[in-house]
């Protein structure tokens, strides 16, 4: 046989040796960090439900995960999640789409104002862009706006202070306010508000849109930081869609969304030196896991699988020497096989017809 380009490739380059015969809990060469996370780096986390796992694990391993909206000292830990605390670096709730992230940054910069922001449910009022952070709602629309003002002011500090943002891309499907383009994390009517087809519309982002939105987000971030550099680690959530409003089978919609998001993340990491991609998605969806990574509902990621993902991360980004979690997000300890994350998207499962 003659010389060929596959001759000297490592085992990781071949499916048989890199996947079929490889221990899925210790996949050699699946991730090589692009840059170091320096000691003391201030890390912000955001994204979809899966990002909550990352937040907890990073904090639990001693990384300095910022929290600009910490919980009151008297709030029981068991209630943090219910009020949107300790899930991410601020109480923004799940940020499922890149457009949502962009709009949030623009709002912080004062460049954009969301519309149709206050939703009502049974006489209580909710912030439509983070409806899950106040389970009982607020007393008035004015109170919603006041809470949001504080939240946005806190985010300015977050965006200015972070050294590294770990963002998990979750969805391409979203519901928007027609007139303004305000993107919601959940459809109106699910947690609060009322769906009105004259006001709200479905959107399914395309590759070019997502890529452009993310670059625009970076531009806003740079402006807020007056050019101070930052780094990004992107991941794609392996969690399938609970429901799809695209008209396609949810399996098809999920594959489409994840493929797009994976492609965007890959292109960003490939072309921009300050952006790294961490393959949480690939580790979880590895066929060798034989779906063991997911719980019985085939959606929720088992804690053991999260352990596996983060073990790969920490094999490259060694946790800081001090074992105690710094002030901020409480460290995650695995207590159950499946730790529930606060995921509004899961509520859609209630609307699935019975078999």
């Amino acid at each position: 046989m003659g010389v060929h380009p596959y001759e000297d490739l490592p085992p990781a380059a071949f499916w048989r040796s890199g996947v079929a015969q490889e221990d899925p809990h210790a996949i050699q060469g699946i991730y090589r960090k692009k840059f170091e996370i320096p000691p003391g780096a201030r890390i912000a986390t955001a994204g979809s439900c899966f990002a909550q796992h990352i937040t907890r694990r990073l904090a639990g391993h001693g990384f300095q995960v910022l929290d600009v909206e910490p919980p009151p000292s008297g709030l029981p830990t068991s209630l943090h999640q219910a009020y949107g605390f300790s899930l991410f670096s601020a109480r923004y709730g799940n940020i499922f789409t890149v457009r949502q992230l962009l709009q949030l940054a623009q709002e912080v910069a004062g460049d954009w104002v969301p519309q149709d922001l206050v939703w009502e449910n049974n006489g209580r009022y909710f912030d439509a862009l983070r409806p899950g952070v106040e389970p009982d709602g607020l007393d008035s629309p004015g109170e919603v706006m006041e809470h949001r003002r504080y939240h946005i002011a806190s985010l300015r500090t977050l965006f200015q202070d972070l050294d590294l943002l770990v963002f998990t891309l979750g969805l391409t499907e979203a519901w928007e306010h027609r007139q303004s383009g305000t993107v919601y994390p959940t459809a109106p009517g699910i947690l609060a508000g009322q769906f009105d087809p004259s006001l709200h519309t479905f959107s399914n982002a395309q590759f070019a849109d997502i890529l452009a939105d993310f670059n625009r987000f970076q531009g806003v971030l740079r402006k807020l930081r007056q050019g101070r550099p930052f780094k990004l680690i992107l991941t794609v959530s392996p969690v399938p869609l609970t429901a799809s409003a695209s008209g396609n089978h949810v399996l098809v919609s999920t594959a489409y969304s994840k493929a797009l998001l994976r492609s965007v993340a890959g292109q960003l990491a490939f072309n921009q030196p300050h952006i790294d991609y961490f393959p949480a998605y690939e580790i979880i969806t590895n066929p060798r896991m034989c779906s063991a990574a997911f719980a019985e509902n085939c959606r929720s990621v088992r804690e053991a699988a999260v352990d596996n993902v983060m073990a790969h991360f920490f094999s490259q980004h060694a946790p800081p020497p001090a074992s105690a979690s710094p002030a901020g997000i409480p460290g995650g300890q695995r207590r159950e096989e499946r730790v529930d994350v606060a995921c509004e998207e899961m509520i859609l499962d209630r609307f699935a017809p019975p078999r």
Partner: protein
Amino acid sequence: MNYTIWGDSHLIGFMGAVENLGLNDRADLTFLPTPNVVNIKEIVSGAASSASLLFDGEVTPVDLAQPEQSVLVVVGNGNFAHFSVYERKGGLPPLWVYAPEIHASRGGGEGDGLIPSIPPVSMGLFRAVYAESVGHNLLYRHGFTAHYFKRFVKLILFIPPSPSVAFFSRQLCSEGYLEAKCLHGFRRAYAALFKQEVRRLGLTSVEINDPSGALELEDGTTAEEYLVDEVLQVHGNAAYWERRIRSSSLA
């Protein structure tokens, strides 16, 4: 009828009102300012038939009527509820829900782009933080028990008033001292929570006397002046408590 009246510093004005109304002549009233009662646990357990009141280093015994033949009156919400808040947060207001390190050193008035010193707090979050401590403080901090409360024929609860939201918006935010909605929300929520916890005691007869209006404060009143004003208008103001008592079954 006998009345056993426990209370915090609001008893100062309350006692004056009782005297002005001549209630002492018509009923058997026993005043028990919680900070000064040294044998609360014994009273609550039924082991003591008199209260030992400590004033200026001297202990004075006060006979107590049998709870089964008495009405329990609770005045104020300080010693029964947020006293420990004062202690935890290092003194008198701001009545904070959040840790003191999120302090006015970072705060500013509305519209200046700075983060307020205290995050706004929803009623739900407030309850989540304080329900347990209110219940604990109401009953256990000073040694009270639900059993003790239930021995009485009836409970009359006098809730102290709060300043108006307008005052806080107008004045305290401009000073960068306190987040208006937060403090008002705190007071409002605290009173609501306090009443809720009282109801949870399972008492058969409860009368809750709420203030009819907010504290009146002049424009320009500073935060420190507010504290003094509150003392003058409420704590030590017999005329104020006369009006409150007249609106209750105690009169």
